Every structure is written in C-alpha cells, then in structure tokens.
C-alpha cells in the first residue's frame, strides 16, 4: 500500500473522514493553547473535572433534541459546565476548601446526574455515544459549531493574553495593581468549557480533555517559552487527530480513543527524547562547557 493510499486516500474518498479531520484540526488549535494555560495554572485536574461536569447538560440536550445534535448538547453542556465552574469558584473563595476540592465535589455530583439521566431515558448505545463520541456523525452544522468555538477561543486568548499570563504567574501582583484577575480567570474557565463542549462529539465527554492535557504536557517537555509551548501543543493535538483518524480508519478502531492514544504515544516518545527529559536523566547527555 502506498503512502498515498494509507494517508490521503481515506480522506479523498470519504466525506465523513474529511469532516472529521477538519474537526480535529480545529479542536487541536483551540484545545492545545487552553491545555498549556490550564497546566501552567496547575489546574490539569480541573480540566478533567470539567469534562465530567458537562455530562448532565449534554445528556439533557441529547434527550430534548432526540439525537446527537451538537448545538443542543453543546448548549446543555455549556450551562452545566459553567454552573459547576461558578459554584466551585464561589465555594473556594468563601470557604477554606481549595478550588480542586470543590471542583471534585461538584463534578462527581454532576457526572452521576448525567449518567442517571442518560440511563433512565436512553439506551446503552446512546450513553456510549455521549461518553465516547461518534466522529462519523459530524455534519456541516457540527463543523461550523466547532470552527466558531475555535475562532472565538483563539481571538479571546489573543486579546486577554497579557493579563491572563500575569494572573497565572503572579496573581498577587495583578491584584496589587488593580488588574481584575478574577475576571480573566472566569473568562478562561468559560473558554475551557467551550472547548470541551466542542470536543465531545468527536471524542466524547470523557476524552475531550485528552486533546487539551496531553499536547500541553508534550509542549512543556519540548519548549521553554510560552508562545513556543502554545504552538507545539496546537501542532501536537492536530497531528494526533490526523494520525488517530488514519489508524482508526485502517484498523477499524473507535476514533476518539485512537486519537487520544496517539497523543499519549507522542507524550511517551517526548518523555524519552525531549531536551528537558534528557537533562532529567532518562537518557543523560554530557553537559556543555559554558
């Protein structure tokens, strides 16, 4: 089989794969940078919690629309995710509970509620679709929806880049100069939820966060500056999407998990060969003279 047949022909022959590829590229460009910033804020697990928290909203949207309608499920997921984010933020600001602890409590409740709703009203197949995604079902509407979210994400990140980065690095400084840090914090959480919602038709609610955190981890291993990390994360997510789709097509695997496993593989390879990991000792190299 030639390289053309292996890498390009599937996309040339099948419209649904082309749409899936465009969706993956868009998701990668949006989720990569978000993941880097989440990780730098030491909120990796908050992203995970959020991806579970959107489930009841998505489930209700799924039941009302009667099918895997991304706008309906997206709206429901957005409302559920934002409610959990706001409630957790409120709890961590008014009680001694840290933000991760309050997130954990709310997302567990939210996840249980979501599974309850889907299992009470839908079949097991429906539940699997919501949890793991069905990339074959991405239609033009879903594609516009994902594209709009990615464009919005990149635009907003570009605008609030400076205060957001300062808020991550030195929140005390931003507070002292009257920089309204919590405003950017919540705007950022809004972007996190939006990108998870965009990801869940392709990858499912449980794995959408994988396209955020794994590329971000890879980026931290290879780059030292924030812009480089953001580019590497977006690139890694996009390439994982492409390779994952190719493999899942040829081997008949489920696309969502294959994409995330591809990203995991890139992460493992980076652990072994990136300059940061090499300095850390897996494959030590000699030091320089100066």
């Amino acid at each position: 089989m030639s390289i053309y047949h292996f890498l390009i022909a599937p996309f040339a022959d099948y419209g649904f794969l082309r749409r899936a590829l465009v969706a993956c590229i868009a998701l990668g460009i949006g989720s990569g940078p978000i993941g880097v910033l989440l990780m730098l804020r030491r909120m990796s697990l908050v992203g995970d919690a959020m991806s579970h928290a959107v489930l009841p909203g998505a489930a209700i949207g799924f039941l009302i629309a009667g099918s895997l309608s991304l706008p309906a499920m997206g709206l429901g997921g957005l409302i559920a995710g934002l409610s959990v984010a706001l409630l957790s933020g409120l709890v961590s600001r008014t009680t001694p509970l840290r933000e991760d602890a309050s997130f954990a409590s709310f997302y567990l409740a939210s996840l249980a509620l979501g599974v309850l709703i889907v299992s009470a009203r839908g079949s097991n197949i429906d539940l699997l679709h919501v949890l793991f995604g069905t990339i074959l079902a991405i239609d033009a509407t879903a594609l516009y929806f994902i594209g709009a979210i990615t464009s919005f994400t990149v635009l907003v990140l570009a605008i609030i880049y400076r205060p957001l980065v300062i808020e991550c690095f030195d929140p005390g400084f931003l507070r002292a100069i009257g920089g309204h840090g919590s405003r950017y914090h919540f705007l950022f959480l809004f972007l996190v939820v939006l990108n998870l919602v965009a990801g869940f038709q392709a990858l499912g609610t449980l794995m959408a966060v994988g396209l955020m955190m794994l590329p971000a981890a890879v980026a931290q291993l290879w780059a030292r500056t924030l812009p480089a990390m953001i580019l590497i994360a977006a690139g890694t997510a996009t390439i994982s999407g492409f390779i994952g789709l190719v493999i899942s097509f040829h081997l008949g695997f489920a696309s969502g998990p294959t994409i995330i496993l591809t990203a995991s593989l890139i992460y493992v390879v980076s652990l072994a060969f990136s300059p940061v990991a090499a300095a850390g000792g897996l494959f030590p190299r000699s030091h320089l003279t100066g």
Partner: protein
Amino acid sequence: MTTGVIQLRDVSIAYERHPAVHHLDGAFAPGSMTAVAGPNGAGKSTLLKALVGEISLATGIIDRGALVPTDIGYLPQAAEIDRRFPLTVGETVLMGAWRQAGAFGAISARSVSDARRALGAVGLSDFERRSIASLSAGQFQRVLFARLLLQDAKVILLDEPFTAIDARTTRDLLKIVQGWHREGRTVIAVLHDFEQVRAHFPQTLLLAREPIAWGPTASTMTSANLQRAQEMAEQWDENATICSMQAGRAA
C-alpha cells in the same frame, strides 16, 4: 489630607475570627521608610496584604488618600511565585509597565529601554532573553526588584525581600531600597533581621498582632519592647472570648 499618607484607623484583620492584626492605629508618612518587624505569626505579612487590598479588614479602615493601585508597588514573599513559569527575564520586568500599557495597550519603546536600564541597575544587564527558570533565587529577586523599579510606584511594599537571599544580593538590593527612600518614595518592608532594621530603616513598626511600638527605630527596637513582642506572639487562645475593645465600641 496630604497625598501619599497611608492612614490606619483601628485596623484589625482576622483569620477564623482570631485576630492576626489587632487594633492598629497610625500612619505611614509620605517618603517615610519603615521596617515592619516582629516575631513569627505577628501579622506582618498580613498587614502588607491588607495595605495592597488583597485581604479584607475585620474592623477599621485603611485610608490610602489619593493613592491608586498603580501607585503601589508590591513585592510578595518569594515562595508565592512559581519560578519555573515559562517567561523570560525581560517579560517579567516589563510587567512593571502595566501603568503605561495596561491589560491591552502596546508596550512602548520607552518602556523597553526603561526595563533594560532597570535590569542594569540590579546587575543583570543582558539577561532579558534568559528564562526565569534558569535563575538562582538571588537573581530572581533582582528581577523582581527591576520590575519594581519599572513600576515607578510612590509607595513600595516589600514582604521579606531578603529572606534566603545571599549577602551580596542583599547588599545590592538594600542600596536600591535606600535609593527609593532618597527619591522620596514611601517604603514599607517586612523584615526578620533586626540588625538590618537598626542599620538601614529610620522608622520601625514592631508588631506582635497588637502594635508594640511604632516610631523612630532607636526608640522602638529596645530590648524591653522585643521581649514584650515575643511574649505577645506566643499567646494563642483557642477559646478566646469576643474582644472587649470591639464589644465596648459596638455598645
């Protein structure tokens, strides 16, 4: 009201209703240079956080007069900042240009050259492209001082600026603090080293939750006062009753 005075009236700050700072009255005059000294747990850092408005007061008010947030430069304790964050030295210093550039404005060429000069002043010329992760604790503290220089603030608050910093860096940075004092800026620094306080700071606020003494360093840092501060700090009453001063005022 004179601009630049920071007036404290009956300031109390509490954690879980236990006071960390208790009924503090007084004022930081414009251009004054004050050390905030006292034993561990005396509420020194808490007071500084309240001065920048980071935590709210249990009682009383802090009157900052005409000072706006960008007039105040604040150096938090070193442990509060993640030094592995992927920023360069230059980017970190340029945060000090917030007053000119704000959240969205362009960084002017003048800010860039000022930042370069500030880095030179702290002895880190040509460091602007280095990542902060590659710096030592002392070098990083110099970077934060460069950021303060760029902020050009009227009031400068330093929280334990020389803790875990080598002697040479401490000496260099103390010179910068003295420079701020000469330029007429108000300097308030939390310090542990009593020798440093006596040698360099004209005014001292000796704090042990309650103010022990506040005035010229020679008359506040007496051994009797220090002894009292130590004794006060060791009292922490789990079953403390409601403060009678406050109850009296409420009645």
